[in-house]
């Protein structure tokens, strides 16, 4: 297991959409390195024949009947919106591919 590089953290912060200053990136790189080293031991025990548990209590087929319920009013929907226009949420320009 390789330690986390600063470049990794830059990439991760971008994936997570959290802007970070150089100082924050440095600090985060150090902290994550320590944490990752401490928890990397899990991969030692996990052999391929052990099934993964993603839900602690195994349930299946929890399904809902196709019946319409209560919706929010447009006012309720937009009540907490940072910005809105004509019944819709307003967001700054989306530059596809950025």
């Amino acid at each position, binding site marked *: *297991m390789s330690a*986390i590089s600063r470049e*990794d*953290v830059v990439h*991760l*912060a971008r*994936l*997570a*959409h*959290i*802007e*970070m200053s150089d100082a924050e990136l440095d600090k*985060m790189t150090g*902290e*994550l390195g*320590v*944490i*990752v080293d*401490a*928890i*990397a*031991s*899990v*991969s030692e*025990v*996990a*052999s391929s024949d*052990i*099934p*993964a*548990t*993603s*839900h*602690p*209590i195994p*349930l299946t087929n*929890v399904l*809902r009947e196709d019946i319409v319920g209560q919706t*929010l009013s447009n006012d*309720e*929907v937009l*009540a*907490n*919106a*940072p*910005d809105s226009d004509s019944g819709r*949420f307003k*967001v*700054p*320009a*989306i*530059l596809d591919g*950025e």
Partner: protein
Amino acid sequence: MHRTPTRADSRSRQSWMVNSSMNELIKLSATELAAKLRAGEVTSVQAVQAHLDRITEVDTALNAFLHVNAEEALAVAAEVDAIRAAGGAQAQALHPLAGVPIAIKDLIVTKGQPTTAASKMLEGWMSPYDATVIEKIRDAKLPMLGKTNLDEFAMGSSTEHSAYGVTRNPWDLNRIPGGSGGGSAAAVAAFEAPLALGTDTGGSIRQPGAVTGTVGVKPTYGAVSRYGAIAMASSLDQIGPVSRTVLDSAHLQELIGGHDPKDSTSLANPLEGLVAAAESGAAGDLSGLRVGVITELQGEGYQDGVQARFEESLELLKTAGAQIVEVSCPNLKYALGAYYLIMPSEVSSNLAKFDGVRYGHRVLPEDGPLTIERVMGATRAAGFGDEVKRRIVLGTYALSAGYYDAYYGSAQKVRTLIQRDFDAAFEQADVLVSPTAPTVAFELGSNDDDPLAMYLNDVATIPANLAGIPGITVPGGLSDGLPVGIQFLAPAFEDARVYRAGAALETLLEKQWGHSLISQAPAITADSIAQKA
């Protein structure tokens, strides 16, 4: 051989009495208060007002509440009083806890009261819907006193990571009240509320319970609906009760539990007999109960005082007829690692929705082009605290291409191994027992620069979340004048067992001490309040 609480000796019990606005009502347990309400000896308005007065008196020092809901709480109390006064079928139909005030961890969404998750991200946000547990509390007419402080988005073990200031431990205002649910635990410990709701992802109900000398329960995963609890780690989160007595928690879990069609992971059937189990445990007879001591959750890493109280508790359980057996869960040594992979992974995804588009804060970048990507980045940079960011980035890493198998995938396998360990242990024992936390409450600020040290506080509580099993913490005495918690664990669906064992230990200890542990908490004096406010 059993030590009685040292603080009870060294500090004046009378300090409670000299407190000018001290009101006997706030010292009652929820069950006792409910009985008095039903008997007409007190009104709910009186009870609510007494707790509001207490909040006014001490919360400037504690900062347990982020929002006090006085007006609505009094209105609900008045409604209950009116129904009781009118008598008849409507009064008969009231829930037994109707009129008993309750505090709500501010991770649980409420209509008409702000919900912040102790984050700047949600400052001023008003939920247009109620959590399922809140609907149940409204239906049962428990006046909600307000919303309690927590580590931001429930990430932390000290409530120091709140965007709205630390909560202080009523036992020592220089110490942490545990976390993430430090607000609920402190509120209950300081008699600001008889009951509170918490959420427990890795110990956020039980560890604060332990360090504040209160009771807290993490139910079986799915026993209480998560709908409306702001998700931290979906496969680990569970809402549960916080109280000063085991019986009170049992009542509260029966109230908030049960199937919810809005939560796909909700159990099909309610877990029953919790109150009955607590009552039977309180009778003090544990004949035939096999209590398993987990080798890996004691000894090294646990403070001497904690270990001592733990061992004394085992002796006491034996006197009540319990059979103590030693069990080993060897894979628990990987629990912390698995937890700190699964939890941040789910966190990184669950907290993606906080982006400044639909609700919450929107922060514009200081310079450069105004694009949605940059607004999201600036919003999340400003809206989240350091611990939240750390976990989001860690989780993003654990899930990212090339690392998934080694990290997230492996952690899910460890989860299977831990479940198997517990399955084997529960072959030998009906309940398992351990200290709840390895240390007593630490001083504020002592883990500021060492996130790993803080994570270690959860070493004994995390396994229950990974396995989905129920756990309770009950006060086990004091170490250096600070509370120690004892934890019981039971197999999934067997929440009744932790109530039975917990109530038994509570009764045995109180009988030995001659009083409850919490009654020995030092007064929060006017001086100390003035100093911390």
